[in-house]
């Protein structure tokens, strides 16, 4: 918050300007009401040749399609503004993931009848979710206004729902741990079971948050980001819980230890598989995951996972310590994955060529690198089967309808205008 002076000339910092006319309802000098001074031009009246042609909307639509679908030629950036999120956000993603994963584990422990481990897992989850609000607030441009996130309930915005999920999850987690401490295990178990519903969103919405942006890398991975983040969450949560339980004296060979090992391995294998699958279909947009610092982090994370999996395979000769090292590997790899995904998004947003090609629907496997063959499709007159074309049109419409319906059902009257919107039209004066 250093640098130039941002004090407004009128009003207060961050508030609407507080000025009023000397006389209520007074005219602004030279003003003509209802934008008569504007509509529509002061130069090009009917006596000029500016718009001397009849309106032909079909011709306009035709030339629009031709020009927007024509070969692009050089791209003059910038097309997108890069995300402004700093180091706190990926760290928060990681913490939230660990919390979700541990919560899943705690409920599974309860189901299997190991209530002592479940109580410890709940504490791990609460410990992981505790720094999350602080991290989120630190990243805000105006940290003092964090509570503005909760001034509305807006199902359409993943960040708004995520903030609510964070509040709900931390509240229920605190209640469950409190019930544990007060010696009310049944209450703790009930709250724990209910919190899975919120925890599922907390662990997965981060992927949705990234996918609902215009950044090519994230938007193109929209169906993969959520599942990938969930896998990381489950693996890191299980790893953290496992380490905590071992420290608390969970004996070797206990079913909980076995199960945690299975979850770690399964989730990380799934993560690796989904990531590799996604990489293959990203095309040009995937370059940002391969180059620079994000690329190095991504590769390091993948090698961390591979090392962990290898240590699990050879654990018999090496014994339990090898498995502890594997758990630490998973935790570190999870963190590196988060930083890689967020960092790569920033690079991807600045890759003007990738942005332009995604807009033309041409980011495919066959134009992977900069030198690849440039296959361009028209905006809407792509040569696709008729059915597919109809589907292409119907699908976004379906998505929009579903989104609106969900919002209407969930949001209801919670959506109110920010300011008291009197919104009077300009008065005739």
């Amino acid at each position, binding site marked *: *918050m250093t640098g130039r*002076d941002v004090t407004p000339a009128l009003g207060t910092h961050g*508030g609407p*300007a507080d000025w009023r006319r000397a006389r209520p309802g007074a005219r602004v000098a030279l003003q003509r009401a209802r*934008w008569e001074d*504007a509509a*529509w031009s002061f130069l090009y009246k009917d006596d000029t040749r*500016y718009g*001397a*042609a*009849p*309106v*032909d909307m079909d011709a*306009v639509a035709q*030339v*629009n399609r031709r020009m927007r*679908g024509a070969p*692009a*030629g050089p791209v003059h950036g*910038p097309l997108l*503004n*890069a*995300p402004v999120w700093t180091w706190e956000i990926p760290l928060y993603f990681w913490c939230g993931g660990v919390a979700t994963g541990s919560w899943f*584990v705690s409920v*599974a422990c309860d189901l299997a009848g*190991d*209530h002592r481990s479940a109580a410890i897992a709940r504490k791990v989850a609460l410990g992981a979710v505790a720094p999350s609000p602080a991290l989120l607030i630190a990243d805000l*441009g*105006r940290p003092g*206004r*964090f509570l*503005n996130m909760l001034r*509305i309930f807006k199902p*359409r*915005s*993943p960040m708004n729902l995520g*903030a609510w999920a964070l509040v709900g999850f931390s509240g229920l987690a605190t209640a469950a741990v409190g019930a544990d401490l007060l010696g009310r295990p049944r209450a703790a178990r009930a709250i724990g079971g209910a919190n899975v519903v919120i925890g*599922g969103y907390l662990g997965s919405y981060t992927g949705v948050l990234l*996918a*609902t942006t215009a950044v090519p890398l*994230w938007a193109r991975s929209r169906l993969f980001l959520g599942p990938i983040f969930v*896998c990381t*969450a*489950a693996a890191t949560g299980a790893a953290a819980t496992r380490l905590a339980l071992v420290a608390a004296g969970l*004996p070797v*060979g206990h*079913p909980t230890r076995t199960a945690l090992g299975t*979850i770690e391995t399964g*989730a990380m294998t799934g993560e690796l598989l989904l990531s590799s699958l996604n990489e293959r279909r990203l095309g040009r947009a995937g370059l940002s995951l391969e180059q620079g610092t994000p690329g190095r982090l991504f590769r390091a994370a993948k090698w961390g996972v591979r090392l962990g999996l290898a240590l699990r395979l050879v654990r018999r000769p090496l014994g339990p310590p090898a498995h502890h090292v594997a758990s630490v590997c998973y935790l570190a790899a999870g963190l590196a994955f988060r930083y890689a995904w967020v960092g790569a998004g920033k690079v991807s*947003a600045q890759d003007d060529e990738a942005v332009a090609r995604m807009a*033309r629907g041409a980011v495919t496997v066959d134009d992977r690198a900069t030198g690849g063959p440039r296959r361009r499709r028209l905006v809407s007159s792509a040569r696709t089967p008729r059915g597919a074309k109809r589907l292409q049109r119907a699908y976004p419409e379906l*998505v929009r309808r579903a*989104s609106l319906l969900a919002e*209407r059902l969930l949001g209801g009257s919670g959506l109110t205008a*920010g300011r008291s*919107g*009197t919104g*009077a*039209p*300009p008065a005739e004066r």
Partner: protein
Amino acid sequence: MTRASPTEIAIHAPAAQRMGFFTDTTVCIGCKACEVACKQWNDLPADGARLRKGASYDHTGALGASTWRHVRFVEIADGGHLPDIPAVGGGRGEQSGDLDLVTVAAQRANGAGGEVDVAAAVAAMDDWIFMSDVCKHCTNAGCLDACPTGALIRTEFETVVLQADVCNGCGYCVPACPFGVVARDHDDGRAGKCTLCYDRLRDGLEPACAKACPTDSIQFGPYDELVDVAARRVGALHARGVEDAYLYGAGDEPADELAGGLGAFFLLTEPPERYGLPAQADSPVQENVVAATAAAYGAALLTAAGAAVAFLAAARRPLPRGPRGLARRRAIRGWSR
């Protein structure tokens, strides 16, 4: 005309109609009066001028948190790159593309320096287009969908306005804008973008940029009237032989619409990428949120179920047997007690 979704956070007024901008690049002279007028009216700070910012003669860069109108210089000579004029005078920066006419004149007067074809260089300068870029006030606005605080609202004029007293600077609207318009101010901490001079509109005044534009390249008015004017202008240009003139953001068939139709649309003569505009765009939130949430939440529930299965399977496995496993069996039973 497509109207904004009824569930948006919006101000409604009975008699209000959709207002917009029509920016005609064929009459823009690149004077940047709109930028100055915008900064003055909206009390925006200067960004600091630097010549050849972004490898162009354009010295104000791009749209940002404190630049709500930006006149983009589109140098179309030499396949979209700057005219490749060798620097004259020596040492002033190699291949910079700057043409130092004073030095050229001095060298000519001294009878030296014939290597630069001044006439051609000056002619190349004519291969420019100027485009006054601004927030598009989309019908399907990504920033508005993303905003978690409700700071971004739809006004009664169907424009998208950021309430600076609500914004907490979360930064989500920045990547959610498919046109790279919204940005977060580093010093101020909040996002900023064009309001289509909402305060002026409420008083029946046209926006500051449109008021200041000396060639009426920026035209303001009721949306339907503007589309009508723009379509007539396209027809007139076609009749004069400018066959590549087209509208960016208006007059499309429903399937081709950009973000449901742009409240601020443009008349362009080159492919959109030349102006830093995407050929197709929509609100990324509306496009992706349902599919992505279904995939993500489904995966989360599957993972939770998988964890439960792993535990139940492990619990059914027999404990270590025989005298050797005795100590372990005791330890395992001891844990749960």
